[in-house]
């Protein structure tokens, strides 16, 4: 009798835990279902071609236009700008911490850098709006607008430095010591070993880290909402006000949009675009990372 009771209890627990794991599957299914169902309704009103290739985004004002390129352009401008800030700093930090720094410095610097990743993005947005734009950008480049892509790109770049730095650090450490020793034995200096042997050997790991950081920058919401502006515009000038996909979704939600209206559906269409882009980048990054790890194990 005790055995049967125990067996039932074990089975119940097993099932309960499985159900917990299933929640994640349901979440993904939910995301895809929610985004897809409203997007399909949206694309019955607006053609896919107009959406993907149109260069004017004006869903709320007449004459309406539903070309998403300005939003994608704004997102890219900020994300690429963020990478331009984060990759040099992240790489330099990783090289310094793994090849040059004494252990005590590493122990202090690594947690401090992790703090950068822990600061909420709204704080970064506030900092960009209140400090970077008026005190840094506008004095140097007076044509900078109050809302601009550059300030958001800078702070997002700072925010993703720890992502790049710690992944690059892992990549450098994965390069076998034998390779470094072989290079040193050929009368190479530390710089030459770090940059001409270790870095090329770790390259796919570095690339994967940049891709993961890119995906994070693309999905960033509050910094761009506060600092980058609400004017969808296709431009490569980072000193202008633009609008990213994420900021648009916030804008629409804060307004009065009745459910079922086309404005409401734009949330899901843009959300779907955002989701697919970040998913694709994450999958590619994971693939690159997996191949890198296989090469060194």
């Amino acid at each position, binding site marked *: 009798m005790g055995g049967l009771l125990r067996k039932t209890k074990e089975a119940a627990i097993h099932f309960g835990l499985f159900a917990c794991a299933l929640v994640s599957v349901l979440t993904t299914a939910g995301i895809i279902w929610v985004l897809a169902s409203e997007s399909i309704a949206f694309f019955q009103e607006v053609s896919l071609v107009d959406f993907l290739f149109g260069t004017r985004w004006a869903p709320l004002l007449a004459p309406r236009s539903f070309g998403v390129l300005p939003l994608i352009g704004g997102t890219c401008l900020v994300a690429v700008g963020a990478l331009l800030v984060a990759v040099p700093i992240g790489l330099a930090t990783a090289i310094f911490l793994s090849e040059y720094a004494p252990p005590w410095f590493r122990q202090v610097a690594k947690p401090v850098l992790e703090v950068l990743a822990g600061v909420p993005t709204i704080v970064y947005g506030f900092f960009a709006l209140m400090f970077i734009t008026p005190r840094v950008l506008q004095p140097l480049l007076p044509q900078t607008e109050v809302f601009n892509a550059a300030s958001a790109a800078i702070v997002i770049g700072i925010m993703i430095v720890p992502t790049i730095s710690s992944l690059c650090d892992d990549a450098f450490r994965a390069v076998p010591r034998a390779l470094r020793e072989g290079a040193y*034995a050929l009368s190479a200096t530390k710089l030459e070993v770090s940059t001409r042997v270790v870095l090329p050997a770790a390259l796919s790991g570095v690339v994967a880290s940049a891709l993961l950081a890119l995906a994070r920058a693309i999905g960033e919401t509050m910094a761009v909402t506060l600092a980058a502006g609400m004017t969808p515009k296709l431009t490569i000038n980072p000193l202008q006000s633009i609008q990213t996909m994420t900021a648009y979704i916030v804008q629409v939600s804060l307004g009065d949009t009745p459910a079922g209206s086309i404005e409401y559906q734009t949330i899901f269409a843009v959300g779907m675009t955002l989701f697919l882009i970040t998913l694709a980048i994450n999958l590619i990054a994971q693939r690159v990372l997996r191949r890198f790890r296989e090469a060194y194990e």
Partner: protein
Amino acid sequence: MESTPAMAADALPSITVKHAPHSARAVTAVIRTEQLTIRYGSTPAVGAVTLDIPEQQVTAIIGPSGCGKSTLLRSMNRMNDFIPSMSVEGRLTYRGMDINGSACDPVELRRRVGMVFQKPNPFPKSIFRNVAWGAAINGYRGNLAEHVEQSLRRAALWDEAKDVLHKSALALSGGQQQRLCIARAIALQPDVLLMDEPCSALDPIATARIEDLIDDLKSEYTVALVTHNIQQAARVSDRTAFMYMGELIEVDDTNVIFTNPGNPKTQDYITGRFG
């Protein structure tokens, strides 16, 4: 613990004699250690070793695992610098200059004292780049392509490599990779070549080819060879040093060590009683 016949560190006119079976010839000691002690933290790995590496000869250092022979070898081109807990006492000189002194730049030392490692470690680059890399970094002034060819010929790899110079070095077999590592080491035209158990990761055929190579190399380079293969030491070297538990037990001409060793421990090791 025996010491080598006393030599003046500086210039007696150096007469290089190859394969001379007798001792007592005037040969310059390129590298000398005097009472060299190396510790990991507080544990000694090498204890008060006094050893000469004579010019243009192959000196083999044999002994059971853990006897400190690799540690001793690595100290000769300051590769032990990369191990933070290492400390060194005693004297270690290269052609009279103190290797551990402040006047000695390890990077420059390594150009003259090259190393081949136990497990082949070619760069994940092409065969050509592997050989050319060290030379290029050090500002080789001649024709680099010719120099690469020469080095590969010298390392007995040219015939196998000449058609695939731009393929990845990682596609080569283990023995070929090790010969590639030898080629890239000699591309720097070093004075001394330190070889740390270069054949231990290779099959017998590859081993035989590299042993032939070592025999050939000693006409141009001084070789210090660490090996756990006793027969290899007997085949290839001119002098043999036997180490046990960090100490130098005996060093002498190879044929003396293998036919009539002075120390009973050496006798036991040679005959396979332990190790």
